[in-house]
């Protein structure tokens, strides 16, 4: 089984409740370490601009390139559900390995705190909540219900298989576990 995310880009207002809820649940201080990011895109010219937001957690790829990139074998993809997580004890820290996981990842999912030699941490699909049968905190936090999570197959059945959107390119190499309802330009 492979878990995944659904993101409805047409609903996202860029409010960042998902990002703050993530920081709260995992107790990440303000600063460079952001397990959930919100990518802003602005295009076009006045009076016809177009704006979109794209969430950026870890996509728990089917073929996660971060796993083989790690010299310490600290990144593990769970067989039973496909969650990609970090063994913090095994992680060498960014000084030691020069952030090989981050360099490998097309989505900049691996995150590092500001401290010297920080270990890599990232979205773990809220493992603790997952174990209790709960949705990731970002999903429950979205005020406009733009996020969903669950087995990727079920998400595909429910929402379709679209995987391209402004601010996101599907990597055939890593196969991120996501389906997206992309935003078209609003203007008629």
């Amino acid at each position, binding site marked *: 089984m492979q878990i995944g995310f659904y993101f409805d880009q047409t609903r996202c207002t*860029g409010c960042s409740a998902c990002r703050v809820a993530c920081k*709260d649940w995992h*107790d990440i201080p303000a600063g460079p370490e952001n397990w959930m990011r919100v990518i802003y895109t602005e295009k076009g010219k006045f009076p016809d601009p177009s*704006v979109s937001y794209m969430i950026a957690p870890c996509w728990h790829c089917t073929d996660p390139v971060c796993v083989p990139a790690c010299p310490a074998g600290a990144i593990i993809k769970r067989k039973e559900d496909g969650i990609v997580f970090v063994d913090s004890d095994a992680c060498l820290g960014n000084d030691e390995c020069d952030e090989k996981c981050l360099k490998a990842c097309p989505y900049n999912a691996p995150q590092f705190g500001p401290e010297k030699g920080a270990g890599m941490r990232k979205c773990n699909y809220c493992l603790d909540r997952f174990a209790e049968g709960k949705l990731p905190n970002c999903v429950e936090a979205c005020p406009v219900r733009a996020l969903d999570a669950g087995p990727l197959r079920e998400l595909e059945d429910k929402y379709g298989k679209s995987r391209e959107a402004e601010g996101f390119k599907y990597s055939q190499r890593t196969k991120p576990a996501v389906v997206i309802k992309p935003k078209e330009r*609003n203007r008629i």
Partner: protein
Amino acid sequence: MEDNLKERPGPNISGGEVRIVRTTSTFDCGGRCPLRLHVKDNKIIRVEGDDFSEPGQLRTCLRCRAYRQMVHHPERLMYPQKRTGARGEGKFERISWDEAYDTLAGELIRVKETYGNRGIFLATGGGYLASLHNAGFAASRLLTQFGGFVTHYGNISSEGAVWASLVQYGSVMVGHSREDMLNSKLIILWGWDPARMISGTNTMYHLIKAKENGARIVAIDPRYHDTAATVADEWIPIFPGTDTAMMAAMANVMIRENLYDQAFLDKYTVGFDKFEQYVMGREDGVEKTPAWASEISGVDASTIERLARVYATTRPAALMDCQGPARSAMGEQYNRCAMTLCAMTGNVGRQGGSAGGGLMGIPVGHMFRMSAIPPGKNPFELDGPNVKGTLDIGIRVVKRVHINKIFDAILKGKEGGYPSDIKMMWSMCNNYLNQTGNSNKAARALKKLEFFAVNELFMTPQAKYADLVLPVTSAAERSDLTRPWPSGPYYTFVNRAIEPLGECKSDFDIISDLAERLGIKDFNPYSEDEWLRMFVEKNPETGPQITDYEKFKREGIHRVSLPEPIVAFREQIEDIENKPFLTPSGRIEIFSQRAANLNNPLCPPIPMYMSTPEDRKDSLFEKYPLQLLTPHPKNRVHSDLYKVEWLREVEPHRVWINPVDAEARGIRDGDEVYVFNGRGKVAITAWVTERIIPGVISIFEGAWYDPDENGIDRGGCANTLTKDAYSGGGAAVMNTCLVEVVKA
């Protein structure tokens, strides 16, 4: 103590018991959301939201997601302090509560004996919106029993919309339940951005659902805000302060093309003929054509014509005006004209329509109907005029000071036409130096006071000017009752999640202790829980509805299920003869005799576009050729939560500027710039964006005023630039402000 607070709660929840507390917050935020706080060892370690079954879940926004970082912020004030440096310098030393009480009680007595009670000014505010601990009521009661005091009238947010709604409908309950937007075929967001200012929990969600349900959505706004970017089919950029001109021109198109609902106007309104005369230019010789409005508003005449036709011929259609554009020099005219268009199109009292008016309140769970400690009759105001229901702001400021004139009143006193010479001020639940017009003037005024005491959570820009700072508890440290903002249909209970931190006390406890020192007996005879139970039981709304107080408390919320969405004035539209509007005529007053009786050119009896100081026709425009907007921020509640790092990093504080205006000034995205006018100068980072109309810049309100030695506000407080004035209807003129920008 501070070290203790700096310790991160940590996600490790093993060891020690974790309690889940169902509660909510008390911010003046636009929502009211059930929270489940995870508490361990007197610390909130996590925040979860509502767990009610969908689709009825009331989801909190990012602000309360970061709630614990405010409650446990290392800069929370933890003990009473007295000033040691100059006013505004921010130097303080710790004192005991005994000394603090002696000082405040001593100053109250000294000022009363030296100048009389008229020397005492009480500044209350919206920083804490709940029944019991809303300090303003308790402090008013105390100072009433102490012989009287002077205070302020009105609020910064909504006076234009309130005045307009009272004139037109005789009521401020002009809203529909938000799910009624799903019945709309066309929704016009006229200066309304619920993605940021919330306008009731889940409002943005319902708006998105309305769009998904096929509604066409048009946004009229100087900014392409996040709501427009998410849902609008069309963005019509417009210059600030000119909405009324465009609306009048839409009325002109509807009249010329006979697209308006004459039967509706005949049955439910009075005075349309007078408005028609104005719009057709029969009195002043100026017909309010789309071309006329285009020249003023910057909106193409053809766009105005098209929107007028679409709005008049699409039913039902909801014109959603709000309060931001009404925070301007003739702001109430915008809401009045919007309401008039709602009547002309026959959308008032209809499902999927709207009544306009900008307030969006519904009569179930409205804050205005919340119980509170009865303040009593202030002796200072006893010989004043009767202000109840008056539309005459002049009468309201005989015994009170308009909220946007507090600091002018301190500086000028009776000689300046204000009710008294203010000698001391006691302030709570507000940061008015930062949140009313002209912060530099406010700073000057606060230096003039003989004594200034502040109840506060943080050392705010205003608290820095205090002689005495009293640390208060947050809503997480109190139990209380709250109402959704501005409406339900539900009621919420604030359950104390943690015991007071440091030496913090609730405002009510502070005020009660002070009462004892001042020799006022039996000021607070009940326990917190006895008060709350009494409030629930005796409130005419909650009394009959909430029969099980303990259950309400346990669940933190009482939801009201409505058989169908609330539609403002549905009753009047269904049966106007027996259920008239609450106006003197019993009809919607497009012409208001009460407004006419004011005999004030700023308060015309029909809605009208008028030229004002600091509009684009003002000669000052040559010197300061940019209009400043000061919208709500999404990552603060006004100036509350300013220190919360999780929220700060979501959106850097920047000034929005169009590339056309930026290039003309050699400004690039990310440059440091100065924004200035005759009132002040702020330093801020430029955000060059196509999302704002050229000629207008935008700074979100609420960033903290921080003047350097040259008087440049390094904090980027929008009100360093705004004017401390009000409109004919009492609106604070925050969005009528001319500025210039240069590269720093």
